[in-house]
């Protein structure tokens, strides 16, 4: 009960933060009626999706301080569960998506249990490896389409049960709901016992253990929560793209993007992953479409993109949100 109240309680944020968040919510709600082009709509859907991923990653990576670079495997689990259940048994999205989340949680416990014996760099490397192994399995597994991937059957009529719509607007609102649910969840999470314990583990694991905190178990729990979050996003990717393959949903590139956005925005804060996604997704998309089209300039967008990331992280390791807080404290 207390947790539920905490989730809806934004009072400990400053007035400015609440106003900005309120305006931003309003913008998201009315955005489809502003007459923006389909490209902008796609960018915004991507932004919401990556915010969702980032917020999930933030539990273990931000609050728990563990450099986790294997989230793509759970995106993949979520995506494949939805796709396969739809192709094989014609099961609606609203059944298969929760199944995907459950499988992701189960799998994360199996992977997390040995993984969290490791610390620091070794842990980071191990997360990459587990993700790569799963990707390789799916690339070579004939039953699930191997490297060719799977297409989900397209229905003649738009169908809410199977989440198939003609217009992107529906997908937009659909992912937006998940986005807000995620914000509420994270708002409760940061004030929960687990949230506090993770922050202590991040600060000083030895001291955390002396305060009765089972560090390994806490990390596994946070890791599972993060996995559940990204599995939801994975399920969405399937119904949104109608097609998945191991390269698009399980790539190392995706894992790194998830972690990078959250870190750049500000790991360990509620707004961080959202800011990171709001910054990097459009940058990535617009630079890509703008520069990628010119001959001789291909690749330049990646250079600009990575230079910006380097500058921000060199200036303030706690990311963009860290910079904002730094200025606020100076002003106060």
């Amino acid at each position: 009960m207390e947790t539920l109240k905490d989730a809806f309680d934004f009072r400990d944020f400053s007035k400015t933060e609440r106003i900005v968040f309120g305006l931003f919510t309003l913008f998201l709600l009315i955005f489809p009626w502003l007459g923006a082009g389909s490209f902008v709509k796609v960018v915004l859907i991507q932004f919401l999706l990556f915010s969702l991923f980032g917020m999930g990653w933030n539990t273990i990576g931000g609050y728990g301080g563990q450099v986790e670079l294997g989230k793509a495997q759970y995106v993949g689990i979520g995506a494949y569960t939805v796709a396969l259940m739809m192709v094989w048994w014609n099961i609606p999205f609203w059944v298969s998506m929760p199944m995907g989340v459950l499988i992701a949680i189960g799998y994360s416990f199996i992977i997390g249990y040995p993984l969290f014996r490791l610390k620091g760099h070794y842990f980071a490397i191990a997360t990459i490896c587990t993700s790569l192994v799963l990707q390789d399995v799916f690339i070579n597994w004939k039953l699930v389409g191997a490297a060719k991937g799977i297409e989900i059957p397209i229905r003649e009529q738009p169908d809410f049960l199977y989440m198939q719509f003609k217009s992107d607007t529906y997908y937009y609102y659909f992912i937006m709901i998940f986005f807000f649910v995620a914000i509420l969840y994270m708002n409760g999470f940061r004030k929960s016992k687990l949230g506090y314990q993770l922050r202590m583990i991040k600060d000083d694991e030895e001291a955390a253990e002396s305060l009765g905190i089972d560090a390994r178990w806490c990390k596994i729990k946070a890791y599972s929560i993060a996995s559940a979050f990204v599995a939801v996003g994975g399920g969405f990717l399937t119904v949104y793209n109608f097609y998945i393959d191991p390269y698009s949903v399980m790539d190392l590139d995706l894992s790194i993007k998830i972690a990078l956005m959250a870190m750049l925005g500000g790991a360990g804060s509620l707004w961080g992953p959202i800011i990171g996604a709001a910054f990097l997704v459009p940058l990535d998309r617009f630079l890509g479409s703008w520069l990628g089209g010119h001959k001789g300039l291909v690749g330049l967008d990646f250079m600009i993109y990575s230079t910006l990331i380097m500058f921000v992280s060199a200036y303030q390791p706690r990311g963009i949100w860290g910079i904002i807080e730094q200025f606020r404290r100076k002003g106060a």
Partner: protein
Amino acid sequence: MVDLVKDFGGLVANNRVSFHINQGEIIGLIGPNGAGKTTLFNCIVGYHKPGSGRVIFKGKDITGFKPFMTNREGIGRTFQLMKVTTGMNVLENVMIGAFCRTDHRSTAKKEAAEILEFLGLGEVKEYHLNELPIASQKKVGLARALATKPELLMLDEVASGLNPKETEELVNAIKRIHAERKITLILIEHIMEVVMPISQRVIVLDSGEKIAEGLPTEIVKIERVIKAYLGEKYAKGL
């Protein structure tokens, strides 16, 4: 109720150290550098596994328990060096200790505030650790351990790095913890001014072995203790 038996066969740091602590006692654990005080300490709270021997707490064998398990059994500890972290303020730090026994944030917050008030830290609860002097940081460490509601509290060189006035204040705080909260205390200490006035019993370690045990006033008269720790000069001065 608290019953500690400890043997370490073949272990260099601690060789067949065994002692017994009664509930409500204050024990001072002293010895020269490298005597194995910290190793002994770590074996009890679970950071090291003893090579052999047993640790028995309240009649329960807790040998080889992990640190978080010994804490849940009722053993709290403080650190010699408090890692200065910027992530959380003082109140939140202490709340994490309180979360050891409760799941509710409001309960944890209330308990943490009480303990901070008790130790005279009520005014700094919104501050971050790096904004506080070292004496207050040490007290926060104490408060954090207290918040886990220990029955046995082990203090690792609480007075190191403090000036005489701060030391005196801390000693008073420890006395009050003992008097009002009925907690058994083990102090690992270099500074005699801390150990002697509050300890009811002192255990002296040297080269991993227990060389003496007794009242503070008696211990300073034992020749072996003088030789190993207090120094010949100090002894002649007596």
